[in-house]
């Protein structure tokens, strides 16, 4: 609709502004912008401010301490341990979830009777809340009374402490979260696999390529965007692991499963050191930003975009 010259005698600058396309556009998105601004952006900025202050959440005085909170991070052995645990967790969880998801998706990418039942079954873990997941795994892996150990004993392997053991707990959480997230990667991979044109496979088959060669040279390159998406998404989630730890080990035993977000929650809401926790959150934010940037850069070189 072309801008028409106002015919009203009350025509004014204000009137023109109100009627311009820009303004009505902004007006339409403003509820969203305002909500995101208040509940998204503002807390992010306030948390940045908090990271330069000493705050116990109790008293109104929050003196500025400059970079003190960030300096403290470097000297905190528990924080260093938490970084270590987070890295180990991410390094196992992300490829694990992608691999299991790809295998399950490949197995399901065909027409079989009851396929929708299998697909639902694969995705259903995503519908289980992380807290119930944690409690189920606590029961399953209990040292004396759990189903998993009953199975191990039946085949002659002694009982394992699992979540109660400082050396095993983190790996049990890896296994548990891979189980929980597989449904997600299955859906993404299944969609990607179904986007692979059948003609390419046919043509290659006619040229004599084996099924494995076809999978390697046709399917895998075409999965690039799905890989990139899962890599970034799962990494960000892995670095922010919290629920599953809270529901199972509370960071223990002996801090063996204390990951960054759990530790920062513990500092802020158990030990009332909110400024320090905010600094930790910002350190993590920068790390996630850098890792994601690296992943995108690598992907630009290697991902075959369609």
């Amino acid at each position, binding site marked *: 609709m072309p801008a028409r010259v106002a015919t009203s005698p009350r025509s004014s600058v204000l009137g023109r502004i109100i*009627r311009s396309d820009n303004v009505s556009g902004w*007006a339409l998105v403003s509820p969203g912008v*305002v909500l995101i601004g208040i509940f998204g952006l503002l807390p992010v900025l306030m948390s940045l401010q908090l990271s330069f202050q000493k705050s116990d959440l109790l008293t*109104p005085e929050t003196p500025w301490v400059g970079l003190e909170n960030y300096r403290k991070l470097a000297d905190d052995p528990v924080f260093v341990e938490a970084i270590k645990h987070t890295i180990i967790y991410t390094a196992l969880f992300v490829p694990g979830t992608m691999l299991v998801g790809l295998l399950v998706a490949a197995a399901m990418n065909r027409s079989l009777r009851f396929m929708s039942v299998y697909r639902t079954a694969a995705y259903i873990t995503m519908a289980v809340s992380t807290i119930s997941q944690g409690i189920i795994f606590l029961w399953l892996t209990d040292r*004396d009374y759990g189903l998993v150990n009953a199975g191990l004993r039946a085949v002659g392997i002694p009982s394992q402490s699992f979540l109660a053991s400082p050396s095993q707990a983190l790996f049990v959480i890896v296994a548990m979260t891979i189980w929980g997230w597989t449904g997600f990667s299955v859906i993404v991979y299944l969609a990607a696999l179904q986007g692979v044109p059948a003609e390419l496979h046919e043509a290659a088959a006619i040229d004599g390529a084996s099924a494995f060669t076809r999978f390697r040279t046709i399917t895998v390159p075409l999965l690039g965007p799905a890989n990139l998406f899962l890599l970034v998404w799962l990494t960000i989630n892995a670095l922010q692991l919290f629920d599953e730890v809270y529901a199972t080990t509370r960071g*223990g035993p*002996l801090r063996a499963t204390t990951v960054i977000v759990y530790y920062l929650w513990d500092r802020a*809401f158990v*030990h009332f050191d909110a400024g320090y926790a905010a600094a930790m959150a910002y350190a993590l934010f920068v790390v996630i930003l850098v890792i994601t940037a690296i992943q995108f850069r690598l992907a630009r070189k290697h991902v075959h975009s369609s």
Partner: protein
Amino acid sequence: MIRRRLCIALVAVLAFVVAACGGGGSSSSGPTEIAVWHGYQDTEGEVFKGLIDQYNKEHPDVKVSELYSSNDLVLQKVLTAVRGGSAPDVAYMFGSWSPNIAQIPQVVDMSGEVSKPDWKWDDFYPAERQAATVGDKIVGVPALVDNLAIVYNKKLFADAGVAPPTPNWTWDDFRAAAAKLTDPSKGQYGWLIPADASEDTVWHYIPMLWEAGGDILSPDNEHAVFNSEAGVKALTTLQQMAVTDKSLYLDTTNENGPKLMNSGKVAMLVTGPWDLSQLSDIEYGVQVMPTFAGSGGTNQTISGPDNWVTFNNGDKKKQAAIDFVKWLSAPEQVKAFSSGTGDLPTRISVGQDQALVDKMNEDLPGTKTFVENLSNVKKVRPTVEQYPAISEALGQAIVSVMLGKDQPADALNSAAKAADEALAGK
């Protein structure tokens, strides 16, 4: 054009709705409304609501409303509400938070109030009063009191041919019994301890430390002294049971205690009266805590009193809140609440009411021992702001020893170092 105007109008309406959501006025006329946040559910919840209804009926000028809020999370919620300028008027708070609560400016210091004779402040158990006191402030009024004692499965004791615990039991007797009651082939353990390194772990150790003659901090609260000979002795007992005898189930997730006890997998718990109602499938007995040989047999225990904390939301509401708390913690209401719920009476005079205690013991066997055990509470945990840090260090030390990763003296020494650093404000 019309369509565009419509859009703008729509947006304006939306914006108005959003703005209106933030509002919420308060009327100046009518009864004074006060909000009470509590963590009572089930029977406790019903009895508590009954008391509030009674109060509202008897006091038409005040309207008390109650809001359930999980006890574990109430401090976070209250902090958020205080920051947002919408603090509750009264909230149930754990006694271990008192030093932190004392720093919230909106918290009402009750010291001037409770010194009035009609409060009968001395009628509260000393441990309760101490847990509500931080320096010269009194941050709350006792809402709940409990203590730890041995709860044991009578059948498992009989089956293993072990005599039930007596008040004369030493920790050596306890250890020997636990070893006899342990049977790996049945997945049965003599004792279970929460081993998540939280305060729940720590407060099982502290009465042992006290009974052995030690203490947590020096009398001036300046530095840690739990790494004393007594501290090592107490922790060595735990080490022997967990590592040498393997008679101690380490509940690292702190989820299993009452469940395993109730299913006959654990012969003894050291726990409080709150677990008794969950032990419906077994016949249990309750006995006071063991002593250490040579400690004089004082059977010391620990109490974790919780408080009703009042917040200042203007003079009128503040006074209404204080009046309500005063009524709620008066002997008649304490008696009614204990009688209805089985919770230990928070007042000495009510605890001495034999008819009440007998009735409670009939409803929930063992309650009587817990009421009597309140007189074995000789000490309280230090009410210092750094207590969470001290508890954290001590908790890690205790669990590392029980998991066989560290020796008692070494673990306590490094925990004491961390505690001293926290106390020095580093």
